[in-house]
């Protein structure tokens, strides 16, 4: 039979509770209510600290930890692997704060296959994230937009009215007249 060594967190919980209980026992009669209240309030806090100090929870947290440079530009987890990040940075640098833009595709037709639905969901999140990132630049109908953002655009001829075209990875950023 093996005996598990208590974790630091468990020792912390035990030590805290023992200390508080001893303090309660030695408290003057008039202060016992106060000491017991502290014990009651502290117990869930200590329990929570102990839970959060477990290796499994710490490992979970470390997945979300970022260095300071990544923290500023990190897309939410749903926009996977920093994809479209360079596009956002390029758009932010190129577009004036009062510029208007449109994101293409516009998701007007319903996808029929499961793969198409997944892709549509992914692009919708990218679209939302770009919308947040580029605010206060306003998202408008493509016919009125000064800028077009073409997500996952294959090689194609220059869009009509294009003044500048920037290719950023698989995406296109187009300035129009």
């Amino acid at each position: 039979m093996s005996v598990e060594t208590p974790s630091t967190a468990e020792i912390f919980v035990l030590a805290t509770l023992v200390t508080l209980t001893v303090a309660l026992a030695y408290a003057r009669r008039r202060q016992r209510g106060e000491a017991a209240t502290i014990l009651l309030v502290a117990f869930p806090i200590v329990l929570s600290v102990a839970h959060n100090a477990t290796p499994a929870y710490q490992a979970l947290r470390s997945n979300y930890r970022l260095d300071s440079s990544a923290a500023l530009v990190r897309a939410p987890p749903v926009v996977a692997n920093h994809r479209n990040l360079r596009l956002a940075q390029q758009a932010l640098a190129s577009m004036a704060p009062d510029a208007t833009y449109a994101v293409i595709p516009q998701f007007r037709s319903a996808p029929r296959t499961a793969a198409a639905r997944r892709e549509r969901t992914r692009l919708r999140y990218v679209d939302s994230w770009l919308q947040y990132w580029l605010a206060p630049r306003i998202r408008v109908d493509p016919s009125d937009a000064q800028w077009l953002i073409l997500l996952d655009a294959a090689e194609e001829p220059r869009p009509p009215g294009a003044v500048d075209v920037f290719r950023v990875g698989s995406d296109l950023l187009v300035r129009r007249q």
Partner: protein
Amino acid sequence: MTSNIVLLLAGNAALIPAGVGFLSLIDAWHRLGQWSRFAVALLAGQALFLVVAPLLLYAGLSVSPLLALPLCAAVLVAGLLAARRRGRGLLQSESKARESSPVAAVIVAAPLVILACAAVVQPLYEIDTMLNWVMKAKVLWANGDQLTGVLDPEVFTRPDLHPQSHLEYPLGMNALLAWSFHWMGEADIRVMHLQLVLLLAAGVGTAWTLLRPMVPDLPLAVGLAGLIAMPAVVHHLLTAYADVPLAVVWAAGALALIRWTGDGERYQLALATLLLAAALAVKQDGIFYDAAIYVGVAVPLLVHQRRRVLELLVSASVVALTVVPWQVYSATHDLGRRDVRPGLGRMQAQTDRVLPTLEGTLNVVTHPRTTLMALPLALVLALICLRRRRLTGVAAPFLISTVLVLVAILFVYWNSAVTLELVLIPALGRIMMGLIVLAWLLVPPLAYAAIASTRAYDEMATASERDRAPGQVPTSAPLS
């Protein structure tokens, strides 16, 4: 980053004079503790901003310092004039509350500083936060000029331009974030989180002021430190959702209202009115939270002191009136988005939502790692207090409002058109945040009342009565 931190702190300090003015107007400033009243003033200033800033926006004006600072100054001057008419100076304090223990102050301040340090380097993760709170704040900050044209309907109120944003949400929180962007001079989305910590800090300071007459300093300080370190609060605060701000202002308002039932001081009712109105300006969940606490307080009053229900009705009416401009704006610009469509047919068709919702609720409130089991603990203590006939004026409204909030959440989930498993159940921890915060804030006083010996409890009650301002007659037995 340092300059942005300093500027954001300055932006909040600029709201304190408005809070001082409001507290002077309602005759509260001189009755509060000499130092803790500054925390109440900060929360009152923030709450005033949450309520008034959307009105400026609907009127076509900006929430820039150029416009808001003169308004803050006007509230301060009005408060000073009212105080002078009552023969009181600005720095005067008539509070006879016991002096604060430095140990207690350190216990509360330490986790706040740690949280603030974590907040200023926090990135944004949640897409809903981006679209519903920060993106709109960025637009409110950058659109128009320093005085007008911020809420341009051609830009702001077109669902086709903001397909995944809830445009029908109230604008209080967005305006407060825009206020911090104005002061920083940029939309610094990391330092921005400090604004939320400052709201929490002001709420904790206000809770300290409101709860001190009911419980000794040390247990109260440990409880407040526990709230600041509570994983659920920390997590949701750092994801920059509006649920923790809503929870903080609502819980502080609920505490003020509960204190009013026992003390009968009008300033407590006025403060509660402001804070509960601010809760409505943060997020529409404030509707059922506010309704629950008003009913929770009204029911015991109906049994024992019916004539005071009229004052409560006036307060509730004022809070309800603050929603009218938002509703009118939303209706005239066709911003309504009905995720919740109540109806018997829908309820019959969606009975399979009831059990998962109840199960999810139970998981949230009994999770030892995230919510410190605040709700079950407070419920048990409240029942013990009712049995021992101690703090019944606190325990009864808490129990009633808890039941009402839980029923409201169940009703909303039952009638919602939104996916239950993917969207609603994971959001339960956030939507219940107000209840969890209030429950945890009430744990120290309820625990003390449930545990303390008769002699110690009576001493606390006597001291509480001594704290009352001269000439003030309690409307019920102290701490009853």
